[in-house]
């Protein structure tokens, strides 16, 4: 069964610093997609970044980047120059069989 594990329920980072959120997943597929979603207090689910498993190059979106280790089934999110608006719940997610499987999330606090 496909699973997504986020081992850090909560994390804190100082404003302007860098933080890395961890995610591991389990799959027997060779081609798949991985995502990070952000859920601010409004509870809207916002796509932060995506990674295609067949691409070796790590995806980046402005201050957000991933470290994708396919053999290790690891997909971490790095947020550089953290801002107060980055405070949210972050969900790692995996696409398979026309559905997305989410991890339990990591709540990120930004300290001013």
């Amino acid at each position: 069964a496909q699973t997504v594990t986020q081992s850090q329920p909560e994390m804190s980072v100082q404003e302007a610093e860098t933080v890395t959120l961890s995610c591991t997943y389990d799959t027997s597929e060779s081609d798949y997609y991985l995502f990070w979603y952000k859920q601010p207090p409004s509870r809207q689910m916002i796509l932060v970044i995506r990674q295609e498993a067949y691409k070796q190059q790590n995806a980046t979106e402005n201050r957000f980047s991933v470290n994708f280790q396919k053999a290790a089934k690891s997909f971490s999110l790095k947020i550089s120059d953290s801002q107060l608006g980055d405070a949210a719940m972050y969900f790692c997610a995996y696409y398979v069989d026309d559905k997305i499987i989410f991890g339990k999330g990591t709540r990120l606090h930004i300290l001013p």
Partner: protein
Amino acid sequence: EPEVTQTPSHQVTQMGQEVILRCVPISNHLYFYWYRQILGQKVEFLVSFYNNEISEKSEIFDDQFSVERPDGSNFTLKIRSTKLEDSAMYFCGVRGAYNEQFFGPGTRLTVL
């Protein structure tokens, strides 16, 4: 620009009543999804819908749930006889070009 809107934003109902949650895509989409998030928990897949048919559904999506797209525009989720445990945030999603899903702002369902 949001890909999809949802109505209502908040629905309060009595246990045993029927509710219909609506999703309106902003532009042409072919693949639709419903997910739910019980407060404080992870986001869970309910159902995917393509070409007027269910393509995947989870164990949660039992006979109490149904989906349809009656007018080729709105995509609805019906819960026939609500239970207390149906209280959750319900998200409608549409598929993007890379299998990512873009979610609406959600409908908060409260069953009393």
